[in-house]
């Protein structure tokens, strides 16, 4: 079992007693197979049961254990103590979100944005069961597959300074999901979603920093989705002038 110890510094915030967040240090015995999440679980079980953080799957699937680890947004279940030792592990709540308590952030803003992008297939025409399944070619699947891997972990939001500076920006994750549906051959609601893409809070807030794609644990490449849609939004804008008047849409 545990043969070494590592220092874990956690940014604590208990709204009922702390005026502002402060770091607290813990010494955690660890073995080579332990993740940062396991260190936090050890602290909660053995040292300090008041510590709050989110987690569920422990295998980089549920997207709930995102936090800043030594300054970078990471999934704590996918980050190993052995890779940080002998340095100190410094964990903070995900950047750019209000801290609810300790490592738990308020994510209402993202949930609201997720609703606004209509993250589900809206068929162009209603389809009945006897019409059978939708068929899709591998090439059609390839257009959106990578963007469908998003686990809503919010690491990309913590990596996006533009979202930090202006939280009305829809942001990388939700825009990647928006693109995932717009790029799906079964979907017919691109025009509705494009209004949000081109809006004040849409893709043009992005200045191609690109760190969101760097930190994404699922290789979604949200920066790519956002920037592809800049071109699409610009093309839509200019296409309006080419269409004859009164042709609708």
């Amino acid at each position: 079992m545990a043969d070494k110890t590592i220092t874990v510094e956690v940014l604590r915030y208990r709204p009922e007693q702390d005026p502002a967040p402060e770091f607290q240090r813990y010494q955690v015995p660890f073995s080579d197979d332990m993740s940062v999440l396991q260190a936090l679980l050890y602290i909660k079980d053995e040292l300090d049961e008041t510590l709050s953080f989110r987690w569920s799957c422990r295998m980089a699937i549920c997207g709930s254990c995102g936090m800043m680890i030594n300054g970078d947004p990471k999934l704590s279940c996918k980050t190993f103590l052995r890779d940080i030792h002998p340095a100190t592990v410094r964990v903070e709540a995900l950047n750019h979100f209000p801290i609810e308590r300790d490592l738990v952030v308020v994510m209402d803003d993202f949930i609201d944005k997720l609703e606004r992008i209509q993250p589900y297939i809206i068929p162009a025409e209603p389809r009945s069961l006897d019409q059978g399944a939708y068929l899709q070619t591998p090439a059609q699947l390839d257009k959106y597959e990578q963007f469908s891997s998003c686990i809503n972990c919010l690491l990309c939001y913590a990596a996006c300074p533009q979202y930090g500076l202006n939280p009305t920006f829809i942001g990388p994750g939700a825009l990647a999901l928006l693109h995932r549906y717009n790029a799906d051959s079964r979907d017919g609601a691109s025009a509705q979603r494009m209004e949000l893409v081109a809006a004040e809070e849409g893709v043009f807030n992005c200045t191609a920093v690109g760190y969101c794609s760097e930190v994404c644990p699922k290789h979604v490449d949200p920066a790519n989705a956002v920037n592809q849609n800049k071109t699409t939004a610009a093309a839509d804008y200019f296409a309006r002038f080419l269409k004859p008047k009164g042709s609708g849409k």
Partner: protein
Amino acid sequence: MNKRRPYVRPMTGWWRKNPFFIEYMIHEGTALFVAAYALVLLAGLVCLAQGEAAWNGWLGALRHPLAILFHLVTLAMLSYHSWTWFKIMPKTMPPVVLGGRRLPAAAITGGGLAAVALASIAALGLVWGMTR
């Protein structure tokens, strides 16, 4: 009483806190040199339109040691700008599918940098040939 009191952290100095952001800010900063050099060329064009004396004056000004230093610094800044610009390029464009396969990011960056190198050599050769 509501015990909730969400704490919002300030954004001050955000770009100093991560090497990735520092690189981004340097990249954005080097764009000023791109603009400055465009102005130098524009001044040359205006001088050319004004006649031979003005044109020779512009050429003379470029030979000043300070102008040469400016050129060297600008060359370094532009090289960094191109390198970081092409590095981010694969993230900014739709996938390029060649023969049913996606072109890897490294190929797009490499292709861009190769294009810069070729264009620079061609321009250098052209100027060299004209001035000899």
